[in-house]
C-alpha cells in the first residue's frame, strides 16, 4: 500500500472516532437521512440564521475529550488533595453538621427514576416523587407542628431571605428584626434579599452573659419601631448554641404588633426541644442537611420552610407545594402540585418568589432519613448530641486557661469556649492543625467582642476517643505554651 493512501484512510477513521461518543447516538448515516428529510445539506446550515460576524470561529480553550477512565483518574487525583472530616478530628458545625447517613438513604435517593425526573409537571407519571415530597412536607410539619410546608428551598440562608419577604407581603410593613448573633452567612444573604424590596434590617442585642436575646432591649426596640415591624426573627438554639429561654415572651411581643414571628431551628434538636409551632412561630425555617445529606463542601443543602395554617399566610408562601387530592373520575388518592397561582410561571412579576428549581431530591433524602430514624431515634440522636456536647464543655472547663461554656444559658449540641489569653489563639489553632484537629469555628473575625472564642459542635459522630485525643492535645498545648 502506498504511503499516501494510508494517510487518506487514517483521518477518515479518526474523524468517525472523533465524532462518535457514548452520549451521542446518531450514526453518520442516520444524520444524513435526517438532513435529507429536512432538505438541509449540512448541520452547519442549521446555524445559518446566526449572523456571521457573531459566530465563534476559534477553538474553545477547554480540555480535550477524556475517556471514562481518564476522567475518573483526573477527578480522583484532584479530590485527593482534600482532607476529609474522616481524617480530621473536627468540631466544626455552625450550620452544617456531620451526622451519620444510613446506607438506605443514598441507596433510595440514587434510584434512577427519582434522580433523573424533572419537576413533576406531568403528575400522572410522577406520583411516586409527588408522594415522597408530600410525605416530606408532612414530616417537617410533624417536627415543627406547623401544618403548611413547601416542598423545599435552597438552604437556611435563602429561607431567611424568603421569610423576611413573606413577612412584608403578609403585613405590609417593612422593618425586620434579627438578633445580633445571627450566623454571618445567613445575615449577609438576608441583607441581599431585602435590598430590592427595601426592607430595613434592625438587629437587637443579646445578653453578654447568657448568650440569649435581651428581652428588655428588644422590647424597647419594638416600642420604637411600633407599626413598622413586619417580622421578628430568632434562632433556637441560636448561633452560639444557646437555647432561648424567653422565646415564648418574644413571640407574644411580636404578635402584639401584628407582626410575624419567625423561628430558625435545627431539625435534630426537635427530638428534644419544644417545636416552633408550640413556641408561637408563624414561620419556621432551617436547614435539613443534618437529615441524611452529606456536607458536600456546603451544598446542596435543604431549605426548610413551614408556616402556620392560616388562609392569608398560605397565599403569601413562596415555593412549590404538593397537595393530596383524588383522580377526577374516582375517589382514588392522587398527588399534584397545587396553589400554583402564587408561583412565577403563572403570576410572573407578581409571584411570591422567583424560585423554580428547588432541592426536591434533598427533601426526598430527608424523608427517607426521618422514616428510618423515627420518633424515638430522633429523640436519641438529640440526646446523644446534647450529652456529648455537655461532656466536652465540662471537660474543657477543667482547664484554667479556658472558659467553657462561654455563656451561662443552656445549650444543645454547640457551645462557645474561650481561651482566656487572646494572644494564644493563633498558636492554638495552628497547634491543633498540626494534629489534624479543628477545635471549632473561630469567632474572632465575625464576633470580636467574644474574644478568642471557638464555636464547637458535637454530634453522634464525635467518638469518645476523638474527644480524649482533643483534650490530651489541649493539655499538651498549654504545657508547651506557657500555661500551667
Amino acid at each position, binding site marked *: 500500500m502506498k504511503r499516501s493512501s494510508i494517510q487518506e484512510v487514517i483521518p477518515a477513521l479518526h474523524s468517525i472516532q472523533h465524532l462518535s461518543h457514548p452520549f451521542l447516538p446518531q450514526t453518520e448515516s442516520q444524520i444524513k437521512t435526517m438532513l435529507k428529510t429536512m432538505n438541509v445539506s449540512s448541520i452547519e446550515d442549521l446555524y445559518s440564521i446566526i449572523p456571521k460576524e457573531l459566530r*465563534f470561529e476559534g477553538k474553545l480553550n477547554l480540555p480535550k475529550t477524556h475517556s*471514562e477512565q481518564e*476522567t475518573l483518574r483526573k477527578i480522583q487525583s484532584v479530590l485527593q488533595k482534600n482532607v476529609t472530616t474522616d481524617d480530621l478530628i473536627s468540631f466544626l458545625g455552625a450550620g452544617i453538621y456531620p451526622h451519620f447517613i444510613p446506607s438506605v438513604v443514598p441507596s433510595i435517593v440514587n434510584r434512577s427514576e427519582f434522580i433523573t425526573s424533572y419537576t413533576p409537571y406531568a403528575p400522572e407519571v410522577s406520583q411516586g416523587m409527588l408522594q415522597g415530597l408530600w410525605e416530606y412536607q408532612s414530616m417537617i410539619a410533624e417536627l415543627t407542628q406547623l401544618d403548611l410546608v413547601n416542598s423545599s428551598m435552597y438552604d437556611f440562608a435563602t429561607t431567611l431571605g424568603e421569610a423576611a419577604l413573606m413577612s412584608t407581603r403578609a403585613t405590609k410593613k417593612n422593618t425586620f428584626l434579627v438578633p445580633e448573633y445571627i450566623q454571618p452567612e445567613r445575615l449577609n444573604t438576608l441583607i441581599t434579599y431585602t435590598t430590592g424590596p427595601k426592607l430595613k434590617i434592625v438587629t437587637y442585642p443579646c445578653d453578654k452573659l447568657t448568650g440569649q436575646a435581651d428581652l428588655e432591649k428588644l422590647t424597647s426596640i419594638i416600642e420604637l419601631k411600633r407599626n413598622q415591624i413586619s417580622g421578628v426573627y430568632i434562632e433556637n438554639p441560636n448561633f452560639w448554641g444557646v437555647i432561648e429561654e424567653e422565646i415564648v415572651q418574644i413571640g407574644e411581643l411580636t404578635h402584639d404588633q401584628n407582626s410575624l414571628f419567625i423561628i430558625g431551628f435545627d431539625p435534630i434538636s426537635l427530638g428534644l426541644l419544644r417545636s416552633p409551632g408550640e413556641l408561637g412561630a408563624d414561620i419556621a425555617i432551617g436547614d435539613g442537611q443534618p437529615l441524611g445529606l452529606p456536607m458536600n463542601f*456546603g451544598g446542596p443543602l435543604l431549605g426548610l420552610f413551614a408556616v402556620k395554617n392560616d388562609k392569608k399566610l398560605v397565599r403569601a408562601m413562596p415555593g412549590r407545594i404538593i397537595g393530596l387530592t383524588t383522580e377526577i373520575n374516582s375517589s382514588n388518592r392522587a398527588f399534584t402540585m397545587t396553589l400554583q397561582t402564587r408561583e412565577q410561571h403563572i403570576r410572573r412579576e407578581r409571584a411570591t418568589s422567583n424560585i423554580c428549581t428547588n432541592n426536591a431530591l434533598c427533601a426526598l433524602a430527608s424523608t427517607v432519613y426521618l422514616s428510618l430514624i423515627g420518633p*424515638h431515634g430522633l429523640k436519641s440522636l438529640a440526646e446523644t448530641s446534647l450529652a456529648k456536647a455537655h461532656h466536652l464543655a465540662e471537660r474543657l472547663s477543667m482547664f484554667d486557661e479556658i472558659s467553657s461554656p462561654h455563656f451561662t444559658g443552656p445549650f444543645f449540641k454547640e457551645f462557645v469556649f474561650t481561651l482566656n489569653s487572646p494572644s494564644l489563639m493563633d498558636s492554638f489553632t495552628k497547634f491543633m492543625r498540626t494534629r489534624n484537629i479543628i477545635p471549632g469555628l473561630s469567632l474572632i473575625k465575625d464576633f470580636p467582642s467574644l474574644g478568642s472564642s471557638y464555636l464547637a459542635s458535637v454530634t453522634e459522630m464525635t467518638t469518645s476517643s476523638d474527644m480524649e485525643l482533643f483534650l490530651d492535645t489541649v493539655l499538651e498545648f498549654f504545657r508547651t505554651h506557657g500555661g500551667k
Partner: protein
Amino acid sequence: MTQFLNFLGHMEGNKVFKQSKWPKTLIFEKSTPGRIGYQVPELSSEEEKVLEKAKRTISSDLLRENSPNLPEVSELEVVRHFTRLSQMTYGVDSGFYPLGSCTMKYNPKICDTAASMIDAQNIHPYQPEDTIQGSLQIMYELAKWLAELSGMAGVTLQPAAGAHGEYTGIMILRKYHESQNNLAIKNEIIVPDSAHGTNPATVSMCGFKTIVIPSNNDGCVDIDALRSSVTNKTAGMMLTNPNTLGIFEPNIKEITDIIHDVDGLMYYDGANFNAIMGKVRPGDMGFDIVHFNIHKTFATPHGGGGPGAGPVGVVSHLIPFLPVPSVAYNSTSDFYYLNYNHKQTIGKVRSYFGNFSILLRAYTYILRLGQTGLTRVSEMANLNANYMKAQCARIDGFSVPYGENSSCMHEFVLSAKKLYKETEISALDISKYLLDNGLHPPTVYFPLIVPEALMIEPTETEPKEIIDDFIQVIRNISKLAYSGKKEDIQNAPINTSVGRIDDVKAARDPIISYRMLKKQKKN
C-alpha cells in the same frame, strides 16, 4: 402473528407501557409502634450521667412533651415503600422526556460516581483552605471553563439554581447602576412576552419594574416595540437566545446596542445554552451577564425538581460586583483560596460557596465531552429538534406558527390549534395520550403566545428511533382525532399509576400535610 409484529414494532406503544400502580398508602399509615428503621448507637454510662445532668439545665417548658409523630417502620418497609414510589416516577432513565426548555438529556452515571466520592462529600465548608485544595481546584477550573464557553470574564458558582442565577445577575445589574449613581432613575427592566416566568419574578424581587414587550410575527423581539419601550429609565433587558420558541434572535446585535445606548445592561438567560456551545457566545453577542442552568446544559440530574446550580458569568467591568467569596489561585505558591476581596460585591446570595456536588458533576461532564464534544452536543441537539419539527409540522392539525420555514435551534413550539378547533383534542389531551404511550409530554401551553402550544426539546442524547416513535404517536393522534375515534385520547392516561387528577379540588381544599389530613378526617 400480527399482534406479535405489532409488539416488536411499537416497543414504546401503549400496548406495552404500563406504569406500576401500587396502593397510595402513606408511610405514616404503615407505622407500627415499636418498630425502628435505624438504631442510634448507645451512650456510654458516663455519657448517660452527663445526659441526665444536661437535661436538667433546660427548663421543662422548653422540652418537647411528645415525640414528633414520625412513622415507626422497619428498614425493609422503608426500602420497599420508597422503591415502589420510584416505580411510580418517570425519569430520563425511563424514557423519552422532550420537556421543552428543560433540556432533559441523559445524565451520565460517571457524574454521579464522581459526586459520591468520599473526598467530595465529607468536607465541611469551614475547613482550613489547605484541607480543601481539591474542591477549590474543581471550582476554579469549572468557573474558567464556563467563562470560556460563554465569552465572559468572570464566573461565580454560588447560585443554587437557574432562577437563583437570574436573581444574582439582576442584583449585580442593580449594584452596577447604584455604583453609577443611576439607580434612582433606572428602575425598569425589559422582558419579552415569550420569557420564562422566572424573569419577571426575578425583576420584582430585585426591586425593578418589568416592562413587557411583544414578539413580532417571527417570534423574535419586535425592534420597533423595543425602541419605543427603551428610555433612560431602562436598567437592562433579560433575553433568552435562542428564545423559548427555539428561534435565534437574528437582530441580537441591534438589540444589545439599543440597550447599551441608554447605559442598560444585557442579561442572558442561559436556559437554552444547549443550542449554541462552540457556535456563538453570549459575550460576543453583546451580553454583559449570563447565567447557566447546570442541570440542563451540563447534564446534572434534576432530581424531581432540584437541586441544580446556576453559575453566573459577567464581563470584566462587572467582576467587582460578583458575590463573595470567589475562588482564586496563586500560581506562585500553587494554592487555591477563597477571595472575599470584591470591593463592590453584592454580598452573599446563599450560604457557603455553591452546590458543590452538582458543580462536580458538571466538571466531570465537561471533561468527558471536551472541547469538540460540547460543540457536537449542540449540533446534535439542533439536528434532532429540526428533524422533529420538519416531521411534526407536516401532520394534519399541527403547525409551527413561528419559524416554520427556517431552522430552529434545540427546540421548537408546535401548535395544536387547528386540531383543537376541528376535533376538540387539545394540547392537554395530547400530553395525556403521550403518557399512555410511555412518553413524557412536551411543555404545554407555554410560551403563552402560541395557542395549544407543545414545546418540544428532544436533546442530543435521544436516538433517531425514539424520536421517530414520538412522531408516529403524534401522527396517530391526528388520525384518531380526525376519524372520530377520540375516546382513547380523551380518556388518557390509563396506563399510568393514576388517571387525570382533580386539580381544582387540590387547590380549593388544600391538604398539604398528614397533620391536615388527620384534622380533615376528624371534621
